[in-house]
Each structure stands twice: as structure tokens, then as C-alpha cells.
């Protein structure tokens, strides 16, 4: 079985209140490393057999119409 991973992130100019909340929580727990946190989504898609270039292309189409909203998000697709 092959796996295709889609990572979806808000575009840099879109406010990410969840990421901001995480960034604010880290120092309260003693973690002082973060200057910024952005939170995204990860999809793991399982397919039969090894991942093909055609499947990657199909997933890219699906990401464009459903998995991501191109108005506010960017995405990357890769085999894993």
C-alpha cells in the first residue's frame, strides 16, 4: 500500500488565531523557542500498490477543489 500526504497551510497573509493561541501557550509551559506558530492540516491518503504519478496528479486536483480552499490556503502533495 502506498501513501500520499497532503499538507494544507493557511496563506502567510491570513490570520491564524489557532497558531497564535499555541504560540502564546508555549512560553507559559516554559518553552521559549518559538517566535511564531502556524497551524495547518495533514491528510494521509492510502492507495493500492506503489504511488503513481497519475495518482499524485489526481490528488492535486482533489486538493484544489476539496482538501484545500485556494482562497485562503496553499497545499503540497507528496508520496510517502
Amino acid at each position, binding site marked *: 500500500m502506498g501513501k500520499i500526504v497532503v499538507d494544507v497551510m493557511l496563506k502567510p497573509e*491570513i490570520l491564524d*488565531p*489557532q497558531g497564535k*493561541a499555541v504560540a502564546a501557550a508555549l512560553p507559559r509551559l516554559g518553552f521559549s523557542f518559538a517566535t511564531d506558530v502556524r497551524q495547518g492540516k495533514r491528510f494521509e491518503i492510502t492507495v493500492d500498490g506503489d504511488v503513481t504519478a497519475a495518482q499524485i496528479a489526481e490528488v492535486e486536483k482533489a486538493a484544489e477543489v476539496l482538501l484545500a*480552499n485556494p482562497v*485562503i490556503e496553499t497545499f503540497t502533495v507528496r508520496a510517502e
Partner: protein
Amino acid sequence: MRIGVVTFPGTLDDRDASRAVKYAGAEAVSLWHGDADLKGVDAVILPGGFSYGDYLRCGAISRFAPVMTEIIAQANKGMPLLGICNGFQVLCEAHLLPGALTRNHELHFLCRDQTLKIENTTSAWTSNFKKGQEIVIPLKNGEGSFQCDDETLKALEDNNRIIARYVGENPNGSRNLIAGITNERGNVVGLMPHPEHAIDSLTGPSTDGLPFFTSVLNALVGK
């Protein structure tokens, strides 16, 4: 006049939207998300709620429901279409309206009576308001922050496509205090606050929401 009110799995405000349609003097027709038949209605309302549990993104899955294919086709031909709250999110996901609704900037779910200023009185759903009129209707959402790029924002502002703005402090981080917008033609309107909950002083903070539902009757008579 027959106005369709769509129910998706997870829709909450379909009953109140139907009630508002009846208060306005029209017939409310229930439409089911899985049924592509619009039953010959003259206009459609996508009510508030949490369709498909807000999974993936608010409105992202509802946008592909069978009923939406026909609604999108009719809206593109000029049929009046109002999306309230979750319905507004569906309209943005369906690209009938530009931009997107994102998480409130303070992360909290808001539920309160909100003052709005009506900016556009020429859309199918706002002709019974006066320009600049202030109204108070409920606002209740977790993802009501209207976001779009600068170019889209300029187009909305320059073409009188802002339906209403929040008055006072920005409740959710929406750009330019935007509470609602319309498309170029003025037949499709998305609104984050809830006019259908403000049509009777017994059950709402005011009756300020009713003109949204009476306005569309003018639009339909005039066509």
C-alpha cells in the same frame, strides 16, 4: 412567492428561516440537501448551523451536496439566494461570493445581539432598508472572520458590494468590519449575523431582521 429553505445534515436555523419567510408573507418550501429538485421556488435561503459538522472547513462539504448544483446554476441566472452564517460559508466555498470565513480572531464562539450598519440597499435582499440604517440582530458563530485579498476587498468596496458592517468593536476580525457582502449582480447575499432570529420582539432582540425577507419579495415582483 415560494422561497426554498435548505436543510443539510447539521443545519440548525432552517425552522427560523422558514418562519421568517412566512412572517414576510411568502410560502416557505423545505429543500433537502440530497435532492437536486428545487420544487420550482423563486428564491433560496441557505440557513445557519453546522452542516456536515463543519468537517474539513465550514461549508466545504455542503457545497458539493446535490441540491447545490441546481442552486448554483439558478443563482448564476439571477435567482435570489441568501446565505446566513453557515450559509454564507457555503456561498464562499461554492465561489458564488469571494473571500472566505475563518476562525474568529479571539478564537471564542460569539453569541450576542450585534449592531450592524446597512451599506447596500440595492441587493435583492436589502431594498427595504435605508442606506446607513443601524439594526440589531443576533450574531452567533465561531468562524465569522471575513478574509479576502486586497484586490477583492477593493472591488467589494468600490462596487458597493458590502451589504452590512459591524458597528463598534470588530467582533471577529473581519476585514473592514464586513458582516455581509453581495455578488456583482446583487442577487446573491451572504450575511454572518442572523436576521431570521430578529423578526418578532417576543423571540428576538428586535424585528430588524424582517426587511431582509420582505425585500426579496420586491425583487421577485419587480422581475
